[in-house]
Structures are given as structure tokens and as C-alpha cells.
């Protein structure tokens, strides 16, 4: 990363504000064209807002009101997800979803949602009997009387998707500026001057994809016509022995008051249970609470009594960016030509993300932006793809060959997720270099498993220290202030490399 300092603003065709999955998807959609695009992210990494903590579900699209933009982009986005994840080497499984009902009242909801799904153009929907539902998900309680089966639903790793999109954007010439919080946007000629905590930029067009803060960014340049109402959702993440008890995604039946709890397998094979829903005042308050965790536990146990919450490995919460308009806000703001936004992207925003990128590109084109494919991309279409080493998923033969060619892949750093030293080093030297323990986790899954970094934490800290030539005390868990060490122990001088390499022989 380079910082733009000094007084001279950097000029670019397009500025994207926000490095979540929406900003990254827009960047990805634009990266093949002959344009200069800069993505601004206030945090030290991409994917640190709502993208970091959500259900990771690619919804089929039967839920949004027919005729809404949400419905259209959800169904389109879900259909695009498989190809994009393949191109970007992002974990995605089209495992299907079941929305389960128990009793006549809920059976009626299932039938209504089926009808809505048909209207929305969701393919393959089926209403199943309780027994048929239990054939899909044997751990479901006997009380389930019917279910809506959506084979096009899936699960994806949301932060990995965001990182993959951003990396390809960079490979194709895009620029991601981290630690760059937008502080002001001013009209400048027929474009905008965007001031950030790290420098200023001049751009003809600005795209607001600032997630929870998209209302704040909107108000920097346009009249206040919507707000983002933060809503917190808490989760349990259970060990893989629980994950194997579920085959795909199970939704409880929504009631007028609640959307219903979900139980799903994650792309890493764990089980996720949640979310709660609670309006909060602070957009950054991702704490969990005993009351909401209890509520999730009891609701999930009603659907699947066999869940063993003793196998919980982590609780977390994420904040939904709910728009006051109850609909995605994706537009060129009429009163401010050149200022575009993709705001209020609540659920099914992840499922819709790829379609939102494409839709935004369409809006830009409609505003007169010339879209010409880049020569470099035309010459080398592989630029639009990404592959990473994922040791744990390789065949024994490939593992053998890889370790023989590069011994760094012969050292396991994270034993729970079987992540090698080579993969951690890859992450540290990736297009958006991992500089914190959690940034490594987001890129490699090291520390995501059942011991929660107890084993790999010290090893990753030591790799970060030696690769980045920093002191252990400079290593952060994630955001600034999340220091891990307070200093050396008595009488010990910290060095930049604490790796133990001494060998022992008998």
C-alpha cells in the first residue's frame, strides 16, 4: 500500500468508498475496463464491516417482495455466484436451503413464500412434507410439518469473496487505499474532491458503498433522504462435529415479529446458528449478550434438539445496514450527478452482491461513462481469475508435489484447519498484505478452528514479526489498539524474529 500525502490530490476516473463486499464487487465489475478506479477503505483491511460477520448465506430469493430491486438482484446474484467463486477460488457450496414449518399457521407461510418465490423467478422451489424435509436434514425435529426447499441457495465465505474480488481488481490495475476514511466530499468542476484521512482525490464519479455509514457519506454531498438503522445479529459458531449434523441451510419459519433463526453448515464445515435481531444505537458495537445468545439457543434447539452447544467455539455478532426505505438504494443521486450509491444493502445483500456490481456498472454506463475493455485483460483473461493454495483441500498426490517443490508448505502452522506456513506467507505477501493476526485468519482460515488460535497464534505472530520486520509488541490482533503484547518479559530483549529453529537429534 502506498499513501498519497501532500497537497496534490490524485486524479482518477472513479472513486469507490467502502471496501466491503459491495464496494469490492463494484470494483471487480469495473476492473476490466479502461478506467482508473480507486477504492477507499477506512480500516486496515477490506471486509471489516458487515461483510466480516453475517450468515454467509446465498439466499435463493423467495423472501424479498416481488417486483423489488432486492428480489431481482438477489435472484440474479445467486445465479452468478457459482461462476464468480470458481473464478476467484472462493469457497462456495450450492447446498440448497430448507425453510421449515411446524403447524398449520407456519405451513401457510411456506406456501406463501413458495408463491412469492415463483413470482420472483426462483428456480427449482419445492414444498416438501415433514418427512421429505427430514430426508434432507435428518436432525430436524419430528415436529416439522412442511418445508420450502430451495436448491439454488448456497453458502459462501463472505470475507474471502470480498478479498478475492479486491485482489482481482488490484491485479487488473485498480488501487485499494487502506486506512483512508473519507472526511469530506466537495464538488469540484464537473467532478468531486474526496478528502480522506490519508490524502485527497479528484474524480469524475464517486460511488458510495460505505455500508453502515453510507448515510453519513451521502450527507457529505447530498440532501438527507435516507438513513441506515443498525441492527445487530448475534451468532454461535460450533465445531465441525456439529457441522456434520447439517447438510445445508435450515431456516426457522419467520413470524410477524422475527425472521426466524437459521442453522447452517459453513464453508469450513462448522455449524453456524443465529442470528438474533436487535436495534442498537452504536454502529460499531459488535458485542454479544447473554439474553440474545440464550434466545438463539432455545429457538434453534426447537428445530434441532440434538445441537450440542458445548461444542461452541466462538460467538460473534454483525451489524446489518438496514435502510429506512426498506429497499436497496442503488442509484445515481438525481440532485448530484456523478454521485452514485449502493446503500442500505441488507440481507440478501451478500447473495445479490455480484449482481449489484454489474447493476452499478450499468448505471455508470447509462450516465455516459465509456466502457472499453482493457488491452491487458483482452490479452490475458486469466487476470480476472485468482487461485490460492488451500493445502487442506488438496489430494495426497498434489500435497506431495507441492511440498516437494516448496518445503514451506510442509510445515503446519494451524493444526485445526491444517494451514501451512507457506499459506500464511502467501497471505502476508498477497495483493492486500495481511498485517495482523486476524487478517491472516481471513485469508487462510488459520485460527478459525476449534482452538481459536491458541496453538497457531504464537506461530503466526512470529511469522508476522519476521516477515514484516516488526517487534512483537507491534503486532495487532486486528484494528489499531488491539495489541497483543505489552512488552518483553523481565530481562529479555525482544528481537524481530522469535522463531525457534533448533533441531534435535538422538
Amino acid at each position, binding site marked *: 500500500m502506498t499513501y498519497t500525502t501532500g497537497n496534490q490530490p490524485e486524479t482518477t476516473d472513479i472513486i469507490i468508498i467502502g471496501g466491503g463486499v459491495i464496494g469490492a464487487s463494484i470494483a471487480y465489475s469495473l476492473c476490466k475496463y479502461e478506467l482508473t478506479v480507486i477504492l477507499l477503505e477506512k480500516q486496515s483491511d477490506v471486509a471489516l464491516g458487515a461483510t466480516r460477520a453475517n450468515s454467509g448465506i446465498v439466499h435463493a430469493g423467495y423472501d424479498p417482495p416481488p417486483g423489488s430491486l432486492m428480489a431481482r438482484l438477489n435472484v440474479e446474484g445467486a445465479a452468478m455466484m457459482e461462476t464468480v467463486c470458481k473464478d476467484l477460488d472462493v469457497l462456495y457450496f450450492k447446498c440448497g436451503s430448507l425453510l421449515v414449518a411446524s403447524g398449520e399457521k407456519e405451513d401457510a407461510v411456506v406456501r406463501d413464500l413458495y408463491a412469492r418465490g415463483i413470482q420472483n423467478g426462483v428456480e427449482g422451489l419445492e414444498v416438501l412434507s415433514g418427512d421429505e424435509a427430514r430426508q434432507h436434514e435428518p436432525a430436524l425435529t419430528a415436529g416439522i410439518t412442511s418445508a420450502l426447499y430451495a436448491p439454488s441457495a448456497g453458502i459462501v465465505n463472505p470475507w474471502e469473496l470480498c478479498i478475492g474480488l479486491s485482489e482481482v481488481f488490484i491485479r487488473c490495475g485498480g488501487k485499494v487505499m487502506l486506512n483512508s476514511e473519507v472526511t469530506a466530499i466537495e464538488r469540484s468542476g464537473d467532478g468531486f474532491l474526496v478528502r480522506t484521512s490519508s490524502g485527497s482525490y479528484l474524480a469524475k464519479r464517486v460511488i458510495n458503498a460505505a455500508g453502515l455509514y453510507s448515510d453519513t457519506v451521502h450527507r457529505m454531498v447530498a440532501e438527507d433522504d435516507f438513513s441506515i438503522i443498525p441492527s445487530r445479529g448475534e451468532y454461535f459458531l460450533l465445531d465441525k462435529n456439529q457441522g456434520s449434523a447439517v447438510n445445508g441451510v435450515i431456516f426457522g419459519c419467520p413470524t410477524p415479529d422475527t425472521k426466524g433463526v437459521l442453522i447452517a453448515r459453513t464453508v469450513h464445515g462448522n455449524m453456524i446458528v443465529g442470528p438474533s435481531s436487535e436495534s442498537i444505537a452504536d454502529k460499531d458495537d459488535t458485542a454479544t449478550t447473554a439474553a440474545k445468545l440464550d434466545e438463539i439457543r432455545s429457538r434453534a434447539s426447537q428445530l434441532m434438539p440434538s445441537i450440542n452447544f458445548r*461444542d461452541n467455539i466462538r*460467538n460473534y455478532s454483525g451489524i446489518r445496514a438496514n435502510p429506512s426505505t426498506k429497499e436497496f438504494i442503488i442509484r445515481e443521486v438525481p440532485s448530484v450527478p456523478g454521485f452514485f450509491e449502493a446503500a442500505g444493502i441488507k440481507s440478501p445483500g451478500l447473495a445479490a452482491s455480484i449482481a449489484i456490481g454489474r447493476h452499478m456498472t450499468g448505471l455508470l454506463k447509462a450516465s455516459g461513462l465509456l466502457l472499453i475493455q482493457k488491452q491487458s485483460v483482452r490479452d490475458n483473461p486469466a487476470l480476472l481469475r485468482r487461485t490460492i493454495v488451500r493445502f487442506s483441500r488438496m489430494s495426497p498426490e498434489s500435497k506431495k508435489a507441492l511440498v516437494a517443490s516448496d518445503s514451506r508448505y510442509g*510445515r503446519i502452522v494451524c493444526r485445526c484447519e491444517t494451514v501451512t506456513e507457506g499459506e500464511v506467507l502467501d497471505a502476508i505477501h498477497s495483493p492486500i498484505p495481511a498485517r495482523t493476526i486476524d487478517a491472516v485468519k481471513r485469508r487462510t482460515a488459520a485460527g478459525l478452528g476449534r482452538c*481459536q488460535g*491458541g496453538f497457531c*497464534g504464537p506461530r503466526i505472530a512470529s511469522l508476522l514479526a519476521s516477515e514484516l520486520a516488526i517487534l512483537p509488541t507491534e503486532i495487532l490482533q*486486528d484494528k489499531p489498539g488491539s495489541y497483543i503484547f505489552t*512488552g518483553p518479559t523481565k530481562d529479555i530483549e525482544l528481537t524481530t524474529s522469535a522463531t525457534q529453529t533448533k533441531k534435535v537429534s538422538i
Partner: protein
Amino acid sequence: MNAELVVIGAGPAGLAAAAEAYREGVRDILLLERDALPGGILNQCIHNGFGLQIYKEELTGPEYAARAFDELRGTSVVFKPDTMVLSISPDRVISALNHTDGYFEITAGTIILAMGCRERTRGAIAIPGSRPAGVLTAGAAQRYVNIEGCMIGREIVVLGSGDIGLIMARRMTLEGAKVLACIELMPFSSGLQRNVVQCLQDYNIPLLLSHTITDIKGRERVESVTVSAVDENRRPIPGTETHYKCDTILLSVGLIPENELSKTAGISLDPRTGGPIVTQDTQTSAPGIFACGNVLQVHDLVDNVTLEARKAARAAASFLRAQGTPEPSFTIPVNPGEGVTYTVPQILTMPPSGKTIEIHFRVNRKFGGSEIILSNGQGNVLKRFPREQMTPGEIERIVFPSSLLPDPAPPSLVLTAQSLTPAKEVNPL
């Protein structure tokens, strides 16, 4: 690659198993260790108190590890450090990985599992609140402080009074940190009594029994914790909240035998111990695969790990000599009854292979004068074992002659603990 015996893990269990198997005449032994050094968790246990039983003197963890490793010198045991075992098949083919041999497979005549255990994390007990840096398990903290030389905090609250938590409370104090309190959910410490005295009492660190952490505050780094008293059902009692300003929370909330590899071999596990179900010879449900140390049951003293490992090694050696274990004519399950949490072994093979049978177990609460009752499945008492006191923090054991089992053998055995006099309320502070 082939080996007569592969020992997985070179902590105290694996080291003792390899040495004993050699003494038993096994020559083709491969000892695999994922760390760069042998010794396992002992390397970071720089306090003393190890080895009184095995080496008849008080040693530190690294000294104990060195002694155990020394027993391998001059033997034909091949030690491979930095080597990670990825899977074991039921027919004993091991796939492993290191940076010199690459990815390789070993066909083993017999296997001893000695992978140890891991710590329960914050998630296991679902502590609500924010998720800042500064919440870590006591064992991870111990590694940072004792091996990496990094201080992990200045003002510390310890949750859980397991031995590692107690040891780290003292260690952090000696390193100049302020340990504000040790919080224990249960009405008793789960650690050794001597550690409660030597690590908390001697340093005036308060032990709050029947308390837990109910909230954590601090966005990027811990700023404070809320501690509440709990009722007899371990539910927090509203209105009892106390707040501690601190930058670090150490968790010592239990250990889990590390059996992910055992699962790849299809070995049956006991939900009570978290370890494999074994016979009195430590043989798992997979023939020729034995287990010992903390992967089998979480131990209280390393000396007992060594003894259990030697037993496993003798069983493995005899398995090799006999070209397999003779099929037992039948088996008897050993079940924990009232007052008993678990038993190891969980199964006795009949006819018994040795002259005596040893059963390890833990009790579920403190006992004063009491007796352990071994009975058959129909309620008939076979033998009573008197005890002056028992505590969940320490492994109990009974040994009885195989001849005690009546002929024909009972369908099952049950172990119960019964109080004779009420337990003395020993509040350590």
C-alpha cells in the same frame, strides 16, 4: 515407509511410550512430533513439582522432558520433529507431513496415540460481551511468556481455577503483572490443592468460588470485566455484579483430549472423557491402536501420564509379539455410577490379560470419608475401597486382582462413590 510402532506425539506420554516399547524389545519405532522440540507442553511449564514419583525428585517441566528424552538416547527410536500427522486409517496407515520428507505415508504394525489435549476457549463457555484482544487461554499465555518472552498484559483476571490458570496467576505476578482475582464457577477449585495454596494464597490473589464472568468490555483491547456470583445451578445471580478494570483475561476453563486424528481412524470416543474408549490394556476400538496420556483422559500429574504410557507401550509390544491381540471371548463394560464422572478403561476384555486390573476415574464433587464401591450390573457389591477424601481435581484409582471378578463374569461393572462422613468444607482461603 513401514514401522513396527509409530508413536504420535513426543510429549511426556509419547516419550515414555517409545522408551518403554524399546525396553520391551520393539526396535523399529518411529516417534512423530509436530513441534520442533520434544517434550510437548512440558517445555513451557517452567515451574517445578514434576517427577516426584517417576524420577524421585522435584523437577521443572523442561527437566522432566529432558529426562524422558534421555531415556531414548542410544536406542534405535527414530524421532521426527516438525512433523504433522494428517490422518490415520483404521488399518494403521498414517499420512504425515514435514518440510524435509514432504508428504509421506507410514504403514504401522501398531500405533500409540499420545497427542495430548487442548484448552477450552471462550466460545466453549459462551462468555458474552465484546471480543477485544487480551482474552486468551492460560496455556497460550504461558507459551507467550515462557517461550516467546512476551508479556501479555499488566492487569489480569483469571477465569477458572484449573492448574494452568493457577500456575499462570503466580507466573504473571512474578513477571510484575497485577492479578486481580481468580474466578471459579464451581464451589471448589478444579486444580490441585497444593497449587491453590502455592499460586494464589501465597500471593494474596483472591479466589472467588461460585462466580463467573458475565461481560467483557473494551473494543480493541480488554478494558474491564464484569464478575457475578452464580446460584447452585451455575446461573449468574442478578445484582451481584462486580467490575474489574483490567487489560487481560486468562481462561483456564478445562482441557479437551485432542482426538481429531483418532476420529480419522474411526476410533470410538467416550463423550465423558473426550478420549477413546479403551480396554484395560489401553487398546482403542481400532485393533493395534493404543492411547495414553491426555489424549485418553486429562491427567492431574505428569508422573501418571508416564505410567499410563508405559502400560500402553507394553500392550503394543505384546500386540506385536502376538501378531495381533487374541480375540477376547467377551467384554464387560465399566460404567460410572453415582458420584463418578467417568472411568478409564471403559471396557474390560475377558479373560483378563493380567493378574490385576486398574481403573482410573474422577469423582464429581468433594468427598470426605467415603468409599468407592465396585459392583456388578445387578447391584451386588464386589469390593469396597475406603477413601479419606476425594476431589474432582485429582484422578482416583482402584486396583484389584482379576480373580475378584466372579465366574461367570457379570454383564457389567459399576463404580460408585459414597460418602460416609460429610465432606469438610475446605475453603482454601
